[in-house]
């Protein structure tokens, strides 16, 4: 029934709006405080609009202490490399498991299941020791290599490929394509929904990851955004919240902007990776 109680609806909307306000409050204060002078912040007034606009000064400080451009670039490079490796390695493997018969399929499935259980936190100690002895700390290699294999990607693509009709592959074989050709020209073009979903999942996860970069990177030149922000906070002794908020704003913005622009894809991606996972 489409009839709505007006009272019920009013309560519902009030609840939703109040909740939304609470959830958005940090963003509102972040934007507001990034434009306030140190002195104004210390009056602890609740006014959201700065009395004098200090945005330029705060942003200048943020860009001055830590190379923000370098941080964002590192983030893009690391996330981009990780995603490319993950997809290039996972798709052929998932295809073989889904559509080809071979003896190791069961063993591989067991490995994937095991892998899904093990987060980076559990493997970081030996990996750190290994990267340390190979003198690879403070490098893109150290940041990217452990994530080049994503068992989750294999798992997600495996489920997606299983749902693809076998006839499609048989037809491609009769047309004379090699198995690699089938992967590139039949499977990948039909797997875009899964690939985009995984891209969102992967980029969000690795853009935000602090644990592993914190372990292998001590040199600012290789810092990813979260790690860079940590460095910035350390350099910014005291409570210069204006500059700090300006820095957080810069670092948060790319992913938030991407999310706002491609909301539908984000939600679909999260739903797909979430529910498959």
């Amino acid at each position, binding site marked *: 029934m489409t009839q709505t109680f007006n009272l019920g609806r009013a309560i519902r909307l009030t609840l939703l709006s109040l909740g939304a306000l609470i959830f958005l409050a940090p963003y509102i204060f972040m934007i507001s405080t990034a434009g306030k002078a140190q002195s104004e912040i210390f009056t602890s007034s609740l006014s959201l609009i700065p009395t004098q606009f200090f945005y330029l000064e705060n942003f200048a400080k943020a860009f001055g202490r830590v190379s923000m451009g370098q941080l964002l670039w590192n983030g893009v490079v690391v996330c981009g490399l990780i995603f490319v490796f993950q997809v290039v390695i996972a798709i052929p493997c998932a295809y073989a498991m889904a559509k080809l018969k071979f003896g190791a399929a069961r063993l591989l499935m067991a490995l994937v299941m095991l892998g899904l259980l093990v987060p980076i936190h559990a493997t970081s100690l030996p990996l750190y020791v290994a990267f340390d002895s190979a003198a690879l700390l403070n490098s893109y290699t150290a940041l990217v290599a452990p994530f080049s294999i994503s068992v*989750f990607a294999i798992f997600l693509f495996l*489920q997606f490929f299983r749902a693809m009709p076998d006839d499609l592959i048989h037809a491609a074989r009769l047309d004379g394509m090699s198995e*690699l050709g089938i992967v590139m020209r039949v499977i990948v073009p039909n797997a875009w929904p899964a690939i985009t979903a995984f891209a969102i999942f992967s980029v969000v996860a690795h853009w935000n990851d602090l644990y592993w970069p914190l372990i292998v990177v001590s040199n600012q030149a290789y810092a990813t955004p979260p790690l860079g922000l940590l460095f910035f906070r350390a350099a910014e002794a005291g409570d210069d919240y204006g500059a700090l908020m300006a820095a957080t704003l810069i670092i*948060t913005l790319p992913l938030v902007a991407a999310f706002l622009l491609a909301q539908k894809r984000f939600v679909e991606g999260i739903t797909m990776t*979430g529910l498959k996972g």
Partner: protein
Amino acid sequence: MADMTAISIPAEVPRQKAPKPIVPRPIVNVSERHEARVAWMLAAPAMILIVLFIVAPVIAVITLGFTDFELGYSTFKFVGFENYAELFGDRTFRQSLWNTAIYTAIVAPASILLGLGVALLIESETVGRSFFRTAYFLPVASLLVAMATVWQYLLHPTIGPVNSMLAMVGLPGPNWLGSAGTVLYSLSMIGVWQTVGFNMILFLAGLTAIPRDLYSAAEIDGAKSPIDRFFLVTLPMLGPTTVFVTTISIINAVKVFETVKTLTEGGPNKASEVLLFTIYQEGFVYLRVGYASAMTVVFLAVLVVMMFAQYRLVDRKVHY
């Protein structure tokens, strides 16, 4: 963003074998052998990397847990269960386990219930659906370290807006992140704020997947009020989603690290020591790799237990 890699339990479905056509044997063998060889080639890079970055390190961490290995020393020896014995008596570790449990006990239920509540409200509302969805989901897409910094400002004891607001209505504001009594709850609050949107999205997907006909049938069967229909249709139909969301919420809560590292470094006075932070400190700051490995094994054991719990629950309870 929640890391979901640790969750899945697909029932492994063996590929159905097609009945073999009656063809002279050698031909079958050639084509089958060819198929197997291609499959191997396609799967080899993934297999090697799984062994290199997952299997070997897990074996290594279990082995290291039985040694006194410290980074910087070239030699180490096996010490049996000594590390585990030490863990047992380690006040910091026990505190850390306890704090993680408390944090999980707050964040998981709160973010599940709020996520479900928000999803139900949004689903039944026609106005502003996408706005509300965006608003609640935004924290999931935001850099947690950055947003934690914002929360630090919001919760600042003297200049923070939260305490300013409390002061306006005449309430004394606590030192949210600075006192041992409140720090864990403040972190939990941030944790809830960060994960509600994720759970909401999954619940929304679960809700849209419920066939409309079931609600119609329920109305005709005599479920007059929306509450009757909620218990007859919505809640049972959300069963699989709920089990999944619960596992993922618990596992993510157990893995809390970013906020602790950014805001409190486990302090004050170890009041916010959590499992991953303690492992990080022991392993990468004090470089006691052997000892930290033993902790890691405990951490892994917790995850494995969670997974099996979910496995059993899905198998038994929510199978249609």
